[in-house]
């Protein structure tokens, strides 16, 4: 995976496959410490301890069409190659929490990528599910909650192009603010 946005798209597929209808995606960055924590939480079917021990094995998968399962192993690798860490917690019938810690100053750190495009893909195919995306960087943060947007829009389908454009622009404008802030920091 080239960047974090692809990892998010990939890991959320696991949650959807597990029947989750509320999925939280959180990115928390601290530029002074050089850390980034990515957490994906779902209320899907969860896993028992036996399966939990197998999830980071690339040759373990629940799929029947192929014999490898690389989603979690690749995220683990990308986190650990920055000197970070990786953790999966799960409880049967409750849900799963996947956490990846990155040292963002490490030379092997992957970029954040196009977060808006990832959210666009997820919402356009699963407009009825609750997705909460929260991005925090130092003392700034923003949150996108599709349940709140759905409540506001009433019977309008979230997968309509105008709505997707609106959501993408919301994410992009907030990312621009982050970008400008970190740029100022570097100058002064």
């Amino acid at each position, binding site marked *: 995976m080239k960047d974090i946005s692809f990892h998010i798209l990939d890991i959320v*597929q696991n949650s959807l496959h597990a029947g989750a209808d509320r999925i939280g995606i959180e990115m928390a960055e601290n530029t002074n410490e050089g850390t980034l924590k990515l957490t994906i939480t779902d209320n899907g079917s969860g896993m028992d301890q036996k399966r939990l021990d197998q999830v980071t094995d690339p040759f373990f998968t629940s799929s029947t069409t192929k014999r490898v399962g*690389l989603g979690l192993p*690749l995220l683990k690798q990308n986190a650990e190659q920055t000197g970070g860490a990786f953790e999966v917690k799960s409880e049967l019938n409750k849900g799963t929490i996947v956490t990846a810690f990155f040292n963002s100053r490490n030379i092997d750190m992957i970029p954040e990528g196009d977060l808006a495009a990832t959210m666009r893909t997820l919402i356009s*195919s699963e407009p009825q599910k609750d997705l909460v995306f929260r991005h925090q960087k130092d003392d700034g943060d923003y949150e996108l909650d599709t349940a709140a947007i759905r409540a506001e829009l009433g019977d309008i389908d979230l997968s*309509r*192009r*105008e709505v997707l454009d609106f959501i993408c622009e919301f994410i992009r404008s907030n990312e621009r603010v982050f970008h400008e802030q970190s740029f100022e920091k570097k100058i002064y």
Partner: protein
Amino acid sequence: MNKIKNLADLRDLKEKLQSGTKLREKSEYPELLVQVKVAMATCCIASGSRETMNYIVDELEKRNVGAVITQTGCMGYCYAEPTIEVILPGKEPVVFGYVDVKKADEIIEKYIKGGALVEGIIPVNYKKIDN
């Protein structure tokens, strides 16, 4: 906290969309619409299926094609990702491989709108259990 700061914009959007004609009354009769399934597993994502999917969703709406676009798991054609499956109303499913944005455009224009087969089909012995 910067929570959906532009709620007013969201209301404007709602008004705008409500006044427009409703294009998508999906889910009620999916068999009458074009169905597109974009494979979205690890292999597919790494090969660029996100861009393919966003492009197809956008373009089908822009070109006024009534369609249901969903994502699906890995179909086992990891070598040919991104792959999509297209089901035209009343027809057998067709799987296309190596579908980048350019290929997707060709599939929409020639196959979905014109009904003509295009290159890049992955042959599958696919039969539903009820036939």
